[in-house]
C-alpha cells in the first residue's frame, strides 16, 4: 500500500461533533457502527481470553506435579475441552473479527460495513453462544469433556451439556458466517474509487480470503455436529459402527473443517504483521503481489491436507503419501511470506516500538511452530508424536506467539487510532518481554515432554515428566499474570494519555488510509469517499 495517497481526506464528518453516538447501554445493544461493533468484539475476545486462560491455568496447576492434586479427572477433561473451544471460537476468531470491523472500512475508505444491522446481530449471537457454552459447565454430568474435536463415540457420553454445547457451536458458526458474508460484500462493493484489488492493504486481502474459508468450512462443522446430535437423540448411527456408521467419518469431516480453521486464525495474523513490518522498517512491503498469491495458495492447500491430523487411524499408503506431501507443500507459500517479511526489513530503518517487537516475536516463534508442523507432516514420524505433548507444543506455538502475538501487535499498532491517546510504551515493552519469555518457558518444554512420550489430555503422569511439567506450569502462570498488564495498558490508554496524531507512527500515512483520519477516528468516517491514486 505504499502507493496510496488520498485526494479527499476521510474525515469529512469531523466538523459534525454533535453527531456522536447514542448514550448508555442502548448504544452498545443497538449500534450498527463498525467502530462500536469492532470495540465490542475486541472487548468480548479479551474477556474470553481471560476466561479461557483461567481454564488453562487450572490445567497447568493440576499438571504442576505428578499425581492428582486439585481437580477430578472429569473436570480436568472439561477444562481442556472448554479452554480450547473458548480460545479458538471465543478469543482468537472474535479478536480478528473485531480488528476487521474496526480497520477494513477505514483501510478501504468505506463509511461502514455493507450490512450494519447484520453486523450487530452477528456480535450479539456470539455473546449468546458463549454464554450457553459456559453455562453448559453447570449442567448435570458436567460440561463437554471429549476434547475440542468432539470425537464420537466418546463425546456421545457427555451428559445434558451435549445439546447445549452443540447449540452454542451452531450459534457461533452462524455468527461467523454472517460476519464473513459482511466482510466479503463490504470489500467487494465499498472500496474507495481507485482502490483496485491489488492496491488493498494486506490485512484486507488476508481477511477477504479468510472470509471465503469461513463460508466454505463452518457449514461443514455445523453439519458434523448436527449428525452427532441426531446420533445421540434421534437414533441415527452416522458415526456408530454398530449401526453401519463409521467414527472415522467424523474425523474426516471434522478435520476438513479443522485444518482450514487453523488458517482462519492465522491468515488475519499474517495480514496484521504485513501491515506492521513495513511501517516500522520505513519501507514498502517486499513482494506485495507474491504475498497475496501466497495467502491464496495457503488457503487452497488448507483444503487438501486434513488427514495429516489422523495418520494413525490407518489409511492406505497412497493416502498417507498424498497428505504428507500436500502438507509439506504449505511450507512453500509460508516460506515466501517469511522471506518477504525479512526482505522488507532488510536495510530498512527499523525501530522497535511495541507493535514491531510483537511482530518480530511472531516471525521467530511462529516459524518454530511451523517447523514442528513440518516434522509432524512426515507420516511415519507422526506415529511417534501423535497425541503427545509435542503436538500441544506445536499448535500452541502457532496460536499463541503466532496468532495471539499478532493480535497484540495489531492492538498496539492501532490502539492510538482507536482511543486518540498514546499508550504507555514502557509498560508495553515490559508486557512484551514478560510475554515473550514466559510463552517460551510455558511451551518449549512441552516439546521435550512429547518427544519423551507424555500423552496429551491426561491429568496425571509418570514421574519422569515431572521437571519439565513444573517448568511449563511456572511459565503458564507467568504468562497469565503478564496479560493482566496488557489489560491495564489498554484500560489506561482508553482513559487518557498523550494525544496521538493522525499518523501516530512516522510516515504511516503512506501505508494506509486509516492514518489519514484523525485520532481517535471520528464516529463516522469516509462519508465522502477518498480517491486512491
Amino acid at each position, binding site marked *: 500500500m505504499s502507493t496510496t495517497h488520498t485526494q479527499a481526506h476521510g474525515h469529512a464528518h469531523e466538523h459534525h461533533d454533535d453527531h456522536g453516538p447514542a448514550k448508555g447501554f442502548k448504544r452498545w445493544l443497538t449500534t450498527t457502527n463498525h467502530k462500536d461493533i469492532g470495540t465490542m468484539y475486541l472487548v468480548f475476545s479479551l474477556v474470553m481470553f481471560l476466561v479461557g486462560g483461567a481454564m488453562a491455568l487450572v490445567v497447568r496447576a493440576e499438571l504442576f506435579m505428578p499425581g492428582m492434586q486439585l481437580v477430578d479427572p472429569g473436570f480436568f477433561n472439561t477444562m481442556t475441552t472448554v479452554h480450547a473451544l473458548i480460545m479458538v471460537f471465543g478469543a482468537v476468531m472474535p479478536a480478528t473479527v473485531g480488528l476487521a470491523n474496526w480497520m477494513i472500512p477505514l483501510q478501504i475508505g468505506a463509511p461502514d460495513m455493507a450490512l450494519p444491522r447484520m453486523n450487530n446481530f452477528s456480535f450479539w449471537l456470539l455473546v449468546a453462544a458463549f454464554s450457553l457454552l459456559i453455562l453448559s459447565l453447570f449442567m448435570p454430568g458436567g460440561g463437554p469433556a471429549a476434547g475440542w474435536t468432539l470425537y464420537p463415540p466418546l463425546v456421545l457420553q457427555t451428559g445434558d451439556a451435549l445439546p447445549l454445547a452443540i447449540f452454542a457451536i451452531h450459534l457461533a458458526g452462524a455468527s461467523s458466517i454472517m460476519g464473513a458474508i459482511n466482510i466479503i*460484500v463490504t470489500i467487494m*462493493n465499498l472500496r474507495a474509487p481507485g482502490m483496485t484489488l491489488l492496491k488493498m492493504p494486506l490485512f484486507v486481502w488476508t481477511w477477504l480470503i479468510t472470509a471465503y474459508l469461513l463460508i466454505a468450512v463452518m457449514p*461443514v462443522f455445523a453439519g458434523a455436529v448436527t449428525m452427532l446430535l441426531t446420533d445421540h437423540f434421534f437414533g441415527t448411527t452416522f458415526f456408530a459402527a454398530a449401526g453401519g*456408521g463409521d467414527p472415522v467419518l467424523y474425523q474426516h*469431516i471434522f478435520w476438513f473443517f479443522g485444518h482450514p480453521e487453523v488458517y482462519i486464525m492465522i491468515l488475519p495474523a499474517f495480514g496484521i504483521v504485513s501491515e506492521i513490518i513495513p511501517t516500522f522498517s520505513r519501507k514498502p512491503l517486499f513482494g506485495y503481489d507474491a504475498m497475496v498469491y501466497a495467502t491464496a495458495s495457503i488457503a487452497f492447500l488448507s483444503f487438501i491436507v486434513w488427514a495429516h491430523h489422523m495418520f494413525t487411524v490407518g489409511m492406505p499408503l497412497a493416502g498417507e503419501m498424498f497428505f504428507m506431501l500436500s502438507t509439506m507443500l504449505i511450507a512453500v507459500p509460508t516460506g515466501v511470506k517469511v522471506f518477504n517479511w525479512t526482505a522488507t526489513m532488510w536495510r530498512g530503518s527499523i525501530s522497535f516500538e511495541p507493535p514491531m517487537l510483537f511482530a518480530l516475536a511472531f516471525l521467530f516463534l511462529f516459524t518454530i511452530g511451523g517447523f514442528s508442523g513440518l516434522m509432524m507432516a512426515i507420516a511415519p514420524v507422526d506415529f511417534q508424536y501423535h497425541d503427545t505433548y509435542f503436538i500441544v507444543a506445536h499448535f500452541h506455538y502457532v496460536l499463541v506467539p503466532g496468532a495471539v502475538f499478532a493480535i497484540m501487535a495489531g492492538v498496539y499498532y492501532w490502539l492510538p487510532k482507536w482511543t486518540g491517546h498514546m499508550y504507555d510504551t514502557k509498560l508495553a515493552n515490559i508486557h512484551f518481554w514478560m510475554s515473550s519469555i514466559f510463552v517460551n518457558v510455558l511451551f518449549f518444554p512441552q516439546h521435550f515432554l512429547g518427544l519423551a512420550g507424555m500423552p496429551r489430555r491426561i491429568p496425571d503422569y509418570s514421574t519422569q515428566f515431572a521437571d519439565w511439567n513444573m517448568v511449563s506450569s511456572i511459565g503458564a502462570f507467568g504468562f497469565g499474570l503478564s496479560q493482566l498488564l496488557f489489560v491495564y495498558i489498554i484500560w489506561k490508554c482508553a482513559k487518557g494519555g498523550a494525544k496521538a496524531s493522525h499518523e501516530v507512527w512516522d510516515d504511516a500515512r503512506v501505508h494506509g488510509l486509516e492514518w489519514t483520519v484523525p485520532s481517535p477516528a471520528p464516529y463516522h468516517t469516509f*462519508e465522502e469517499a477518498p480517491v486512491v491514486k
Partner: protein
Amino acid sequence: MSNTRANGPTEQQRRRIRRGALALALLAIGIYVAFIASGVLGWRG
C-alpha cells in the same frame, strides 16, 4: 443523532451487496445441507 451512519451506499451498490450476500448465504446453507445429505446417503447405503 442515532449511532447509524448518515450516508450509505448508492442504490446500485445496495443491489450488488444484497445479491452478493444472498448468494454467499445460499452457498453456506447448500454446503451444510450437502454434507448432511451425503452422510444420510452413506448411512443408508
